[in-house]
């Protein structure tokens, strides 16, 4: 088995060929990026507005929970039946659009819910202080609420990306490409090394992307929010004052 796997991946054409791992990886990334991009553009602004105003929180929770439980394959096939007849000819769009819709619907809930949660969770005293010093609504949102909500937003985006990368394999069911191709083709032709290669590639891709986003997170989220404090300045003390009397004019006799 190991030997079969080894001999499969040591063929250059399996990597770089027109239907090789790299080509499938490229397609996989493309489908995922389109879906995650659309989700970010939809869910983050909506989440910020809902979180900031507090209006529509219940609706967001409902939508998020409903979408999370979507049966991805069933929905995909339903959408293909519904949409692809609208596109005559052999254009890729008739399959790409249903796939994208499914992936977007799957990735919106975690981004949206986390963005709303992140903004709602901002210390009310900090929000109050921001308004109290004369910040306008959008200043409060962008100068205080958004920076403080970033850790939760990032964790929403990370789980969305993981889910999209894993689910994008279903594109292969409807004759699109992606790493799912290796798995489905491998299964039908009983080339198990191909199946394993496809599955491992999906897992590795998910891990690599997660690490990448974690790095971005590290450099965009304030240390004050993430709690990764530097050691500098750790020795500061409250400035001692000679006249720290307990009462205005009576001082405890002390040596």
């Amino acid at each position, binding site marked *: 088995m190991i030997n079969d796997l080894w001999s499969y991946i040591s063929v250059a054409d399996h990597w770089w060929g027109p239907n090789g791992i790299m080509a499938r990886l490229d397609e996989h990334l493309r489908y995922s990026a389109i879906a995650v991009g659309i989700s970010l553009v939809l869910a983050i602004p909506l989440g910020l507005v809902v979180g900031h105003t507090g209006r529509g929180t219940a609706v967001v929770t409902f939508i998020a929970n409903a979408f999370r439980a979507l049966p991805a394959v069933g929905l995909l096939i339903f959408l293909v039946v519904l949409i692809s007849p609208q596109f005559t000819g052999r254009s890729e769009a008739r399959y790409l659009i249903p796939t994208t819709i499914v992936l977007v619907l799957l990735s919106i809930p975690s981004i949206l819910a986390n963005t709303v949660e992140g903004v709602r969770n901002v210390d009310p005293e900090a*929000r109050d202080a921001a308004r109290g010093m004369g910040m306008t609504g959008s200043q409060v949102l962008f*100068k205080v609420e958004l920076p403080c909500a970033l850790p939760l937003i990032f964790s929403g985006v990370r789980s969305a990306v993981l889910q999209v990368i894993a689910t994008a394999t279903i594109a292969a069911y409807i004759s699109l490409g992606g790493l799912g191709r290796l798995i489905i083709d491998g299964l039908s032709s009983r080339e198990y090394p191909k199946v394993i290669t496809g599955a491992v590639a999906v897992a590795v891709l998910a891990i690599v992307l997660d690490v990448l986003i974690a790095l971005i997170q590290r450099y965009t989220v304030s240390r004050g929010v993430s709690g990764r404090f530097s050691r500098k300045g750790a020795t500061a003390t*409250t400035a001692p004052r000679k006249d720290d009397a307990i009462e205005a004019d009576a001082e405890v*006799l002390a040596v």
Partner: protein
Amino acid sequence: MIKFESVTKRYPDGTVAVNGLDLVAPSGQITVLVGPSGCGKTTSLRMINRMIEPTSGRIWLDETDTGTVSTSKLRRGIGYVIQHAGLFPHRTIVDNVATVPLMLGVDKKTARAQAMDLLVRVGLDPAFAKRYPAQLSGGQQQRVGVARALAADPPVMLMDEPFSAVDPVVRAQLHEEFLRLQQDLGKTIVLVTHDIDEAVKLGDQIAVLRVGGTLAQLATPADLLARPADDFVAGFVGRDRGYRSLGFADAGDLPTRKEVTVRLGSDFAAAAALAEDGWVLAIGDAGEPLGWLDASHPGTGPIGPQHLHRGGTVATEGGSLRAALDAALSAPSGRGVLVREDNTLLGTVTASEVVARIEERAAAERIEAAR
């Protein structure tokens, strides 16, 4: 000057938090709003910067009706300190303090330099500047909150229980720093507390509110303690007000006596021989009183700090009768220690001498009142 003109706040659920409030907070002074929980202190304060809109009535800021200016413009001219400081967790301490100047368009370098100065002013080590709020204690955060509110140098400051989240020792320290700062800055301050002692200590005038949001009494601290307007105020001002009002009574020239003193490091037996009623006062090199030496205790060799009784308080010349009486009552020798401004020993005074002074003063006041 801040002026409330029959201001009423009725919340949507029907709660009347403030009812027909008329009040003037004079410029350059500290006005303290005090009263039991739920009496409308926070509501009154937040109506000044329109964090809460009054249901009826008007609030004037000098010549301006606050209802006629935009809220952000109004608030940028008013420093606001809230209970737990409400610092921005994602910004360093120095950037927290510089927030308003930066918003007003001051360049970053100037704003930061000013912020550093302010941190020092409120008693924080500049080494804190690069830290984040989560790395500071509650008391330190409150100092930063005060510094942040002062940053744009607003003429008016609103403070809602700014010293509540800290222990009594730190609070007393913050009080001192606050009063010293106000002496320099002369801001128009409205401060909310439910602690009458804090009100008496900090206020130039005190407004006592009762539940339902009406004004029970507006008076100076001394007046409030001496002449509560009614049972409610009397009950709220609390026990010991006779004693506490002595805090506002000038001690004047007390009949001090000279005290035989010994120096730290001199021989114990020789020092004990000088004791009067079993106690002798030890002083330091600069003539400052250090503590009482118990001559009845057996001891030999040089006097060390460990031999000294430390329970007594010291009163400063020209201070209050309360401090003088407290010094006398707390001294193990029964002789209260008085010092000069420079902390050198002036002499001692007994409780009965202070009480005699208190009675003279009260008698004089009665004669004054009878006229």
